[in-house]
């Protein structure tokens, strides 16, 4: 086993330990020195998760979050040096994490926070000129959405719970058992979160899959008969979320 392989295994082990072949010049137990590296690895990754998931952390408290994140780090260490992308599977981990079951909406709040991080760092693509879009738009149009645009459907009031943690002071009573959907995108430099209806989720997801406008509208109306095309399209246009439009017929 190579030196770095043994070092790596000891860094990620569940129990503190020390690889062989290392020593301290003063004769101190090398495990007491190795602990610095182990702590650096764990705390830097837990801190990165705490930064990406601030409301998830607030919902369970710092101590619980750090313990949970520590187990996640050991189970799913980063597979890339791009730390802003680390933790993409934390919500799934939370969903299966027994001690977090008493906060059933925790995983969806984490999913919402992940979409916010992705939107924050998404590519800069200018929106399509509005007058050009309106002149060309028809049922066969396929709208390209900005890469920052994402939706989330939750059986819980994930948007309201998240929003309640954005301001200081007492949190108004929230009924977490009401299903909610979210639209997450970046407008200018700021990431925005909107509560949207299930028809809008179906509509946006259909556009995302390259469906023509009339097909996306059908999907939206199947999801919710109250879907309002003008309101949803107006929201997307006003937020610069449509970047291109083409009229090619779907294969």
């Amino acid at each position, binding site marked *: 086993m190579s030196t*770095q392989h043994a070092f790596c295994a000891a*860094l990620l082990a569940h129990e503190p330990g020390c690889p062989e072949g*290392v020593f301290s010049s003063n004769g101190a137990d090398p495990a007491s020195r190795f602990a610095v590296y182990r702590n650096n690895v764990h705390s830097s990754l837990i801190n990165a998760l705490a930064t990406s998931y601030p409301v998830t952390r607030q919902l369970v408290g710092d101590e619980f979050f750090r313990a949970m994140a520590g187990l996640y780090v050991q189970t799913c*260490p980063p597979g*890339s040096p791009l730390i802003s992308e680390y933790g993409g599977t934390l919500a799934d981990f939370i969903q299966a994490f027994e001690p977090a079951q008493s906060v059933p909406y925790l995983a969806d709040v984490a999913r919402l926070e992940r979409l916010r991080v992705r939107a924050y760092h998404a590519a800069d693509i200018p929106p399509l000129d509005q007058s050009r879009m309106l002149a060309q738009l028809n049922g066969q149009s396929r709208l390209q959405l900005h890469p920052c645009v994402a939706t989330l459907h939750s059986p819980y009031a994930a948007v309201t719970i998240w929003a309640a943690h954005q301001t200081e002071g007492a949190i108004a009573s929230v009924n977490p058992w009401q299903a909610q959907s979210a639209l997450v995108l970046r407008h200018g430099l700021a990431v925005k979160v909107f509560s949207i209806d299930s028809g809008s989720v179906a509509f946006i997801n259909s556009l995302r899959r390259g469906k023509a406008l009339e097909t996306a509208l059908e999907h939206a109306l199947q999801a919710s008969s109250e879907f309002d095309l003008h309101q949803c399209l107006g929201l997307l246009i006003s937020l610069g979320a449509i970047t291109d439009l083409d009229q090619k017929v779907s294969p």
Partner: protein
Amino acid sequence: MTHLPHHTVSPAQVPGLPLRAGLGLKSEHFIEVLETRPDIGFFEVHAENYMVAGGPFHHYLGLIREQYPLSLHGVSLSIGGEGPLDCEHLARLATLIERYQPQSFSEHLAWSSHGPVFLNDLLPLTYDATTLNRVCAHIDQVQSTLKRPMLLENPSTYLLFQRATLDEPDFISEVVRRTGCGLLLDVNNVYVSCINHQRDPVAYIDALPLQAVGEIHLAGFAEDTDSLGDRLLIDDHGAPIDNAVWQLYEQVLVRTGPVATLIERDNQVPAFNVLQAEAQQAERLLSQVTA
């Protein structure tokens, strides 16, 4: 009416880092820097923080780069890793360098990835012939891919390896000699490692190839104890620069002359003016050796 001299080179366009103090650029300070245009010699950023497609980080760095010289500091290339260098990561570095044209690129004498796992820390190397050959080959690859020399930063370490056959300064000297890379002399790392390994920091510095120093780092450390109750210093970039490190810095400057000097603070980031005061302290010491 004032007449601007012809052919004035904007400070942001100078070929190398100025022999002044710089600050690590933190996202908390983006707007303040743009609004107040503080008199700072240069800014340094961690390359990996800007390996994102778009958004505010690129927006603000682009605007700040128009005004200031830039040092691009990599923290995750794993130059000392046993495996091959991550070519995708190297390509991302090349893209950033192309985009921002930094005056300097630096990385660490350390490893941080093993196989598919990225450990997000600067981990220690066994200083022997095998590691030396590998580190030199990786630095050759970096410099040929990026088409520019890089600066290599000395690490802070907490352990030693029984199989090591070279001292750290000798190892670094040989890397510099073989690859032609420069040295980013982290004075805090020298102090931390020398306390941790019971070495004389001045003797350590005198054993380095000081003619190759292209940048200096100054930072604060945290203090712990090991199993014997001895001081164990931890490079955490989370505190003001210690007096002992300022004193060591003065001794370095006597030997090197003025060198671009970065104040690093990555944790418990204070108000901008607190960091600026440390930069001014470094500039006072720099001006003493200039005079």
